[in-house]
């Protein structure tokens, strides 16, 4: 009699969510791999200069960072620009200096790749070049000549 009977009472079939954990796990693994767990505590302000012709560094593990900028905690450390290695303040010269730090970092890598290590100077815009120049001289003295002036990509506004 009724060929076209309304299936009124029928409920919508439940959506199969059994693949959901797989998708979530996939995302999870991605973020687990992409996450760098231990970010050093930043002690200095580094608002990077903005320029247009930036290059990307492919091998992140071959980059050593030197942060230069005015301290964040001004009441404790003053306002003059300071140098930061890993998570502590450093100096240009001496036992706590650039040479010591870069040499230490170099020794963490096998002999063959030491020449490829790049030093990235993350300097605040307001820092004067005098300090950067001193760091550069120190780097030249220990023959680590690959340098990167860290900068953000963007259009230069005059």
């Amino acid at each position: 009699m009724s060929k076209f009977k309304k299936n009124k009472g029928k409920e919508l079939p439940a959506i199969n969510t059994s693949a959901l954990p797989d998708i979530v796990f996939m995302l999870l693994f991605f973020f687990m791999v992409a996450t760098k767990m231990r970010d050093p505590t930043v002690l200095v302000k580094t608002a990077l200069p903005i320029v247009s012709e930036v290059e990307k560094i492919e091998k992140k593990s071959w980059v050593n960072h030197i942060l230069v900028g005015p301290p964040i905690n001004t009441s404790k450390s003053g306002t003059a620009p300071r140098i930061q290695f890993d998570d502590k303040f450093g100096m240009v010269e001496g036992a706590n200096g650039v040479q010591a730090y870069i040499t230490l970092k170099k020794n963490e890598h096998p002999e063959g790749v030491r020449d490829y290590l790049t030093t990235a100077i993350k300097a605040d815009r307001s820092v004067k070049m005098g300090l950067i120049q001193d760091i550069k001289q120190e780097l030249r003295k220990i023959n680590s000549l690959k340098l990167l002036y860290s900068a953000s990509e963007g259009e230069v506004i005059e």
Partner: protein
Amino acid sequence: MARKSRKIPEINAGSMADIAFLLLVFFLVTTTMDQQKGLRVQLPPYPDPNVPPPVVEQNDRNVLEVLVNSGDQLLVERKPLRINQLTELTKRHIQNEGRLPNFADSSQAAIVSLKNDRGTSVQRYVEVYNELIRAYVEARDEYALNKFGRSFKDLPKKSEQALEVQKKYPMKISEAEPVEYSSSN
């Protein structure tokens, strides 16, 4: 008395997604995707104090002298210049090929010498450096487009064509030995 063979009860995996989500959110929040970007520079080796620096006969026309003072002002070839004109001028210098008397003989011989004061800000120094690099990038692009119909960055890396462009326009930007120009720091 035979024991009834019991089925192993199925493990309820319904909450697995919840756990995974929880972890996912944690890693999402903690992830910092900072990229290593910047201007790549090769420093000159440190001069040996026992060996006097070699005297290089450098034709003055081949060297474009760029000076940034402590007030972040620009002096190119002893004339003040605005920074937005620097790319243009640098390009004219390296693409001159001996036409104008005060610019470079050839693109291979062209050198840009960048000097700065101790009081120059990092922002301005990096900006100036950027303009110089841009001049080279544009010159290389134009050459590659003319010769191979493709811009330099579209040429495969280390290919013969790319190397030829690099050889034609070697990026010779020299960061001069630090000199004290003024007492301001």
